[in-house]
């Protein structure tokens, strides 16, 4: 079981952080990904496969300031 933004997710095939971000409709340049309490650099999204027990928080920024 993988927890993403508080929701339990199951994936039938190996899914990278990049795959999930694309499928869920996030814009990569506007987000910060926290994987198991550490920020995952964008350079790692493509080769980080989500695995059982992972907790992911995707923080998405909106414009304005």
């Amino acid at each position, binding site marked *: 079981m993988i927890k993403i933004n508080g929701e339990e997710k199951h994936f039938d095939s190996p899914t990278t952080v990049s795959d999930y971000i694309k499928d869920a409709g996030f814009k990569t*340049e*506007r987000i910060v990904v*926290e994987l198991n*309490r550490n*920020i995952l650099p964008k350079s790692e999204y493509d080769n980080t496969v989500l695995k059982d027990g992972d907790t992911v928080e995707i923080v998405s*920024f*909106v*414009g*304005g300031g």
Partner: protein
Amino acid sequence: MRVRVNGEYLDTNVDSIWKLRDECGYPSENTVVIKNGYQTSEDVELTEGDIVSFIKKGVMPDEKQLAELMRARHTPGVYDAVKDARVVIAGLGGLGSNIAIMLARMGVGHLHLIDFDTVDASNLNRQQYYIRHLGMYKTDAMKELLGEINPFIEVATDCVKITEENVLSLVENADVVCEAFDNPAAKAMLTEAVLTRTDKVLVAGSGMAGIDSSNTIKTKKVMNRFYMCGDGVTGAGDGIGLMAPRVTVCAAHEANMIIRIICGMENV
């Protein structure tokens, strides 16, 4: 008894604040009296250890006097915590201009302001600039304004765009980094850079457009070293403007969290 008056210890035999004011030579008219952080307009009893400030209205204090006034006016301990603190403010728009002014009023001793833009007339609906600043770099305009609020704090400026290449050198001396950009990609870039490549604490803002309830704007601790203020969802866009009240509410959330972090409070 021994009391503290305008930063100096004083031995006195008088037993009331009015008598002390007279003894110290301050006129009964046009003198503001602050006792233990609280302004009083009535005579009150003087007790051992009281901390008292007498302030002549309309007179610019020197550095030591102003420091003592802030020490007297803030909650005890706060001024002494912030006076040596170093904060980087990344972006001087609606968030950053308000945050810079609040931190200067608090007496945060070292502010480092970073922005590449100039002041234009569309900024005046929410940013802390004046007509006279139109066309000036925001770094220069804000440095001028902060000098009019507290000329004794150190204000460094960099008129540059923050990138992945220069971000580390720009934040290296900071205790706390304040994200105050407008652009969401810039917000994400700075956040990721600070949290993965430094050991600094980051306070960011996201979601303060429109005129929804003020009460949806919150401060959240996302994770260790990462705080986020705003409603999280209301971005500026077609049909949703950025306006002074909610942007200022969010700025105040960021500023207060920065002060709390400097004072050693890690929870929101």
